[in-house]
């Protein structure tokens, strides 16, 4: 059984998506249990894979028994075995938490929604697990197309925002495909490991350079790296909460994973950081991304949109960390994929709960929430602490590695940007907390006037949220183990 985990984690959600879409015609109530079961199995196989990799090292799984470079192979190494459980667990928890929200928002379309949801997860997991450059493109588009569908199911402005995302997403994916084409011209292979083996004599080739740059631009477009971020805030803001809390944590992070995969496995750090020598410029771009993300977030008077700009800033963290070109920075970037996925999930799930109860996410709608929804707000506080970077939440530790990496690379601009964004995050979140905390009755000195009681979201929404909040702290405390047992081996030893 455990031999087939790599296939299971893509096949199970894919087939169950079909089953769900059929079940939707028969009985709508069947969809949710099937989807949860499918994602449960997927999460189980992902965790199983991580444990196997910890035990045995890199696993090569040949799809259909065809050997690479002819057949498509799934490479499960330390890098993606870490990202896989994150993706699947985020998807599972978010699905459970949003059951009520989905039923509330589109009572007639639950079947199609779950189908798209499962297909999206299939695509994301496939991107992470595949070892084939072209296969990655196809899965990229599977994730993207289903993502457009999910995001468009939202407010009035959602279809237009999604359409803008679709143009950008398609251009990004096409750029990636074009880059892969150049790689294919020079190497004649699409297998990532194979390409990496064939490339070193060709490092000076202009075609390789072009391939790398085109791939990077494509990936940056898809991850909303400033200034290519314009599609993200609207698309995520106007979508329904279930979709935005699946897509916001995962899509950008998976694309960062793709970037790191390209740097570490396909092009190798030697080419990217030594032969190319543009890393300094990219880190400065990341600095601008972080600063602009933070400043643009400050300008918003709307919780969900503010969070989307924080996502833009966080992308800057990871790109900058990866391009610092040293071990600490790369460790920070990989760790931040995990942490940022979890903390973004946490804050977006909070928005989901708020929308479910209050029917809005503008700042004016948030008054008195600490009294009305104490558990949801507690989770928001923990998520905010993680984004600000307060120990022992996990966000602190990835920031730690990123800053240490910046110091050892001598890139103090990046360090200053990280500190700046931490301070801005304090302002951002405490502005929200103030609104939630000071109530309309704040003008007269309050004595014993407990106006109104709790009005918390349903248990099925709060419990997964609190689990995520606890995970934020637990992951923080286990940072040492994650770095020592997983990430350390994900980075080639040549990288110091």
């Amino acid at each position, binding site marked *: 059984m455990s031999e087939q985990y790599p296939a299971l984690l893509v096949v199970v959600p894919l087939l169950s998506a079909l089953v769900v879409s059929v079940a939707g015609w028969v009985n709508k109530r069947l969809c949710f249990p099937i989807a949860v079961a499918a994602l449960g199995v997927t999460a189980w196989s992902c965790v199983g894979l991580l444990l196997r990799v910890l035990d045995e090292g890199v696993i090569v799984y040949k799809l259909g028994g065809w050997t690479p470079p002819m057949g498509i192979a799934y490479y499960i190494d330390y890098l993606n075995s870490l990202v896989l459980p994150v993706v699947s667990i985020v998807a599972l928890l978010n699905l459970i938490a949003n059951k009520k929200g989905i039923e509330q928002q589109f009572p007639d379309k639950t079947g199609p929604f779950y189908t798209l949801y499962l297909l999206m997860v299939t695509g994301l997991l496939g991107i992470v697990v595949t070892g084939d450059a072209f296969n990655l493109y196809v899965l990229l588009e599977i994730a993207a*197309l289903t993502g457009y569908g999910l995001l*468009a199911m939202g407010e009035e402005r959602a279809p237009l925002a999604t359409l803008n995302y679709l143009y950008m997403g*398609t251009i990004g994916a*096409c750029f990636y*495909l074009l880059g892969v084409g150049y790689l294919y011209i020079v190497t004649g292979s699409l297998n990532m490991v194979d390409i990496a083996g064939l490339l070193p004599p060709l490092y000076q080739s202009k075609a390789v350079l072009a391939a790398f740059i085109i791939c990077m631009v494509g990936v940056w477009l898809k991850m909303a790296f400033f200034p290519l971020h314009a599609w993200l805030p609207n698309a995520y803001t106007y979508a329904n909460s279930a979709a935005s809390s699946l897509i916001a944590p995962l899509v950008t992070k998976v694309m960062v994973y793709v970037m790191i995969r390209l740097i570490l496995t396909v092009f190798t750090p030697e080419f990217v950081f030594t032969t190319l020598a543009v890393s300094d410029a990219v880190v400065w771009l990341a600095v601008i991304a972080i600063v602009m993300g933070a400043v643009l977030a400050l300008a918003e008077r709307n919780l969900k949109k503010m969070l989307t700009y924080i996502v833009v800033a966080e992308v800057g963290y990871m790109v900058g960390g990866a391009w610092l070109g040293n071990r600490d920075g790369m460790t920070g970037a990989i760790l931040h994929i995990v942490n940022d996925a979890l903390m973004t999930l946490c804050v977006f799930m909070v928005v989901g709960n708020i929308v479910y109860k209050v029917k809005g996410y503008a700042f004016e709608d948030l008054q008195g929430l600490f009294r009305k929804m104490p558990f949801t707000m507690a989770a928001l506080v923990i998520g905010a602490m993680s984004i600000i970077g307060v120990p022992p939440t996990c966000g602190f530790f990835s920031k730690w590695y990123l800053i240490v990496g910046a110091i050892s690379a001598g890139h103090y601009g990046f360090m200053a940007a990280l500190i700046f964004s931490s301070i801005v995050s304090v302002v951002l979140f405490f502005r929200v907390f103030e609104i939630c905390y000071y109530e309309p009755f704040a003008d007269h000195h309050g004595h014993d006037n407990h106006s109104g009681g709790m009005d918390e979201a349903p248990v099925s929404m709060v419990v997964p949220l609190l689990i995520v909040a606890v995970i934020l702290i637990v992951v923080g405390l286990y940072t040492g183990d994650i770095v020592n047992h997983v990430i350390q081996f994900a980075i080639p030893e040549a990288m110091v």
Partner: protein
Amino acid sequence: MTDLISMVVAKYNYWIYITLMMIGLYAIIAKNNLVKKIVGMNIFQTAIILFYVSISVKKGATIPILEHGHGPDAHHVVHAVDYINPLPHVLMLTAIVVGVATLGVALALAIRVYNNYNTLEEDKILAQIREK
């Protein structure tokens, strides 16, 4: 000048795909009508398909079907030079499917937008959003 011309002529397939790509990109960025943007996007995708197809072409080569793949004469040496590379074509079949799917989703979204705003001109839609 002649150098440039000979360079363009020698690698005309690249120049065509780049031109197509730029046309598509221009349409996506500059056009005001949503359907024109979608068309631009499709041109963009097609450019890349063209690129893939053209790179597998070889002079004097034929389609990659072995004439005597079976039967008594099957055991003879295959010269790769005689056949064009089939792999990019196969890949592009997938890419075409992806392109069609993208187009479908895009058009569906455009219909949703039209239902909401009764127009497909972006500036008019934005004006309506601003009014609200």
